[in-house]
């Protein structure tokens, strides 16, 4: 049944409040089961052997000694994962990333795997596997990898997007260009031009729960996979394709997920666990340790970005350009393209050009990390925006407002914006008491903006009403951080029942139609929409049942506040029928009452945020500390206020970590030197202040409740907000994140030497 997706202003009873999440008790008592928290009869322990080299030819793998170790039940190499991809280069890359095929492409690349009766035996077996490597020259830096004489990763990469097509392979996978107007002419019109180059370090999503799964393959080709994932349907499809299984035969269940942030959108160990189980004919549990998580999963790109912005003295930007170089690890990705699409998205710039270069290096395959690619572009561009404002002597918020994108502005990536929130967030920042708060010695304030697209996508949802009047809602997006609560609120709102009457279940891959991965801030937007429509279907059923119970035409019945009411003079004396009363009689009126919806949820509303950051810089050590922070973001419509605020706060904290501490450090040997939480330091409780939030609600016209995704946008501004604050505090413009104490101190020394 087709439903009207468009926004209708209404008064909400349930939505927009703060309820206790339905899965709260399980999660505070330790009962909730995450990826590593389940067990199968006869299960084995799986472990993966990983390359210690950044780049090497694998000449020989000898597993004979390991196979003889008592308790070892299966050992696999790439030979046990034959290429069934039928030339699909995307799938081939995933396959090769899961298990090296003749070449190790980064430190941590899987080369073999073992399944054994216990952890101790599995570890011993790994040590007995003999791998003969021929070490090859490597490259881990994005700028180095682009040079003509750089060590080559793949002989099949010929730069796309350049004319004529290159005749030689290189590490440059693709060039992207987008823009509008005449940039050269625009720069000629400028009174002031600022040009600057920036670099950002590679960061990891840093979810606290390592990747974990329990795989079981039967000799008849049926299989089960329990896994911590953001998308059990796409995991099912990918694993089935790589293993040669039918989609329907591989029942995939998403466990509770201990953080994802984009890092659990793609498979790593899961096909390996399935292949081990197939070979051993027993269930195999494969849990990564933290070292493996850092070396072989996640991270986002490190980048190198040049920005040029020209403006009139009155603050109008006449032209802006950027060249963005993103490394995608050992396999090509869309990362620089996303940087091009997002970088200037907050502004209405007549003459704009962005050129992106996607580059491969000997590092783990990059994966989405919360608003992927946008924070780096925003760091470079929002830093330059502040420099231009300073040059022309204009307040940096006023300068942004002067050039701000509005409804009707063409986005850098093509479409015309509908109603968007960047201007209101900037106005809210300008008028916020935080902006007038006094600063102490060595403290200063910075502001920056951020954009993220948000997405919708394929969604399939079931709603079943029990004969006691309680409701089971089954969705196929995962609950990454409170989604069950938000979706229960939406179902309760539509049906007119109390919030605690609704229980939300995450359906496995065999119980619902395909659901796209929970990414792009789509969970509450898409499953919320499908829930509304499934509830409306169920209401239609209940109206029919009421018609039967009353023996009147269904056209004479309306649904209001959780009850069916007969309309018109003829039926005016009929009492209402509640959902509970109708459900109790359902066995006599046509059987179970259910609603269902499958939809490609188009029309995700863009997300915009503006942040205010106060830092204190210790001039002796160069250490910068965030002392006050405010997030202003447009949510479209906030369903559960706590969990919307929580997304803003968590995203800001990740951005602050990226700005100040976090970075992959590679040695000369191409090996990762800080693959642990001690040396890769994410923000701890004592590093941060309370993070204030302000939720704006500019309804998304393409959602019945006006919802926009809220999960990602607020990781975009912090890098520049922190940098702008540091620049205002100590007068140095940091051009590289993380802005670690040693980098700030070196910049302060340079400033001293120059003066």
């Amino acid at each position, binding site marked *: 049944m087709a439903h009207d997706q468009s926004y209708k202003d209404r008064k909400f009873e349930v939505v927009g409040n*703060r309820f*206790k*999440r339905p*899965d*709260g*008790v399980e*999660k*505070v*008592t*330790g*009962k*909730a*089961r*995450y990826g*590593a*928290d389940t067990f199968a009869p006869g299960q084995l322990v799986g472990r993966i052997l990983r390359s210690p080299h950044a780049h090497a030819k694998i000449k020989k793998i000898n597993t004979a000694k390991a196979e003889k170790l008592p308790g070892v039940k299966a050992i696999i190499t790439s030979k046990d994962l034959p290429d069934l991809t039928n030339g699909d280069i995307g799938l081939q890359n995933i396959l090769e990333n899961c298990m090296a095929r003749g070449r190790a492409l980064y430190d941590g690349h899987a080369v073999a795997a073992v399944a054994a009766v216990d*952890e*101790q035996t599995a570890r011993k077996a790994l040590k007995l596997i003999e791998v003969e490597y021929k070490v090859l020259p490597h490259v881990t830096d994005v700028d180095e990898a682009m040079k003509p004489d750089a060590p080559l990763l793949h002989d099949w990469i010929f730069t796309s997007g350049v004319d004529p097509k290159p005749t030689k392979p290189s590490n440059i996978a693709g060039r992207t260009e987008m823009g509008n107007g005449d940039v050269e002419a625009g720069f000629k019109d400028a009174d002031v031009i600022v040009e600057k180059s920036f670099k950002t370090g590679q960061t990891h*999503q*840093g*979810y*606290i*729960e*390592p990747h974990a799964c329990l795989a079981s393959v039967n000799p008849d080709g049926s299989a089960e996979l329990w896994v911590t994932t953001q998308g059990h349907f796409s995991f099912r499809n990918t694993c089935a394709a790589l293993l040669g299984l039918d989609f329907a035969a591989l029942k995939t269940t998403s466990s*509770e*997920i*201990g*953080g*994802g*942030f984009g890092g659990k959108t793609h498979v790593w160990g899961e096909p390996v666990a399935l292949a081990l189980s197939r070979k051993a004919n027993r269930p195999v549990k494969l*849990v990564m*340790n*933290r070292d493996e998580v850092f070396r072989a999963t996640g991270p986002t790109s490190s980048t190198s970005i040049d920005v040029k912005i020209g403006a009139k003295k009155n603050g109008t930007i006449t032209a802006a350009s950027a060249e963005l170089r993103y490394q995608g690890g050992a396999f090509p990705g869309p990362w620089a393209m996303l940087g091009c699409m997002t970088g200037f998205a907050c502004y209405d710039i007549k003459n704009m050009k962005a050129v992106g270069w996607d580059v491969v290096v000997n590092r783990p395959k990059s994966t989405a990390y919360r608003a992927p690619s946008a924070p780096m572009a925003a760091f470079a561009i929002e830093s330059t925006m502040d420099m231009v404002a300073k040059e022309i002597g204009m307040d940096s918020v006023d300068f942004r407002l002067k050039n701000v994108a509005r409804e009707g502005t063409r986005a850098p990536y093509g479409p015309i914006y509908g109603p968007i929130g960047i201007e209101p967030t900037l106005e809210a920042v300008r008028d916020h008491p935080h902006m007038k708060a006094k600063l102490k010695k060595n403290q200063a304030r910075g502001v920056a903006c951020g954009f993220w697209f948000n997405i919708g996508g394929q969604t399939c949802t079931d709603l079943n009403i029990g004969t006691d009047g309680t409701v089971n809602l089954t969705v196929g997006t995962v609950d*990454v*951080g*409170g989604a069950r609560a938000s979706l229960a609120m939406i179902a309760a709102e539509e049906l007119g029942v109390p919030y605690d009457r609704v229980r939300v279940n995450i359906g496995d891959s065999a119980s619902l139609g395909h659901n796209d991965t929970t990414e792009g801030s789509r969970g509450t937007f898409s499953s919320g929409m499908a829930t509304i429509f499934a509830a409306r279907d169920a209401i239609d059923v209940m109206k029919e049942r009421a018609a039967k119970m009353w023996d009147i035409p269904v056209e004479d019945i309306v649904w209001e506040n959780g009850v069916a009411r007969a309309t018109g003079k003829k039926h005016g004396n009929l009492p209402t029928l509640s959902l509970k009363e109708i459900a109790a009689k359902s066995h006599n009126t046509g059987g179970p009452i259910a609603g269902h919806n499958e939809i490609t949820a188009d029309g995700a509303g863009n997300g915009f945020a503006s942040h205010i950051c106060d830092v204190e810089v210790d001039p002796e050590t160069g250490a910068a500390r965030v002392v006050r922070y405010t997030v202003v973001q447009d949510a479209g419509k906030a369903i*559960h206020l*706590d*969990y919307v*605020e*929580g997304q803003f*706060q*968590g995203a*800001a*904290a*990740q951005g602050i970590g990226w700005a100040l501490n976090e970075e992959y450090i590679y040695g000369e040997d191409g090996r990762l030197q800080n693959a*642990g*939480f*001690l040396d890769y330091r*994410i*923000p*701890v*409780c*004592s*590093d*941060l202040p*309370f*993070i204030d939030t302000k939720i704006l609600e500019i309804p998304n016209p393409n959602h019945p409740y006006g919802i926009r995704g809220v999960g990602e946008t607020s990781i975009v501004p912090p890098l520049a907000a922190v940098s702008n604050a540091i620049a205002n505090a100590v007068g140095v413009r940091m051009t590289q994140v993380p802005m670690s104490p040693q980098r700030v101190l070196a910049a302060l020394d340079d400033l001293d030497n120059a003066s």
Partner: protein
Amino acid sequence: MTDSTLVSTTINGDSIEFACPNDETLLDALRNRVGLTGVKEGCGTGDCGACSVTLDGRLVCSCLVLGVEASGREVGTVEGLTTNGELHPLQEKFIEHAALQCGVCTPGFLVAAKALLDKNPDPSETEIRYALAGNLCRCTGYDKIVRAVQATAKDMRKAKKKKG
């Protein structure tokens, strides 16, 4: 096969015996031999606090303690916070304040926060932040966690005063 030791210990008030390989961590023993999977492994190197438990009342990372070291001692895990079906005030406040998103760090935070409040019923914000600095959370930015601990401390002080 690694040598094993029969460990007799008290976990959440119950007497428990299990055979433990001598090189196995308390974390692995609790999860895989005793079935207490509320204790989480986030790093295995004592950096994230997801495996926080108490050993004779002292807060430790169970990944840095051997299973055999639990012999004759008292271990407290998140599973022991609930008494007679009643949630501990910290558990209540964590839910009420939305102090968890994904929830995987929550057991460790609860154990660490309880250890703090047992020692210091009236901690300042800074004291809370430093006491919980060994527990990593990647979802919340810690804001609502600190608020939940503050609210719990306040309520528990009030309740104690009332009890007198």
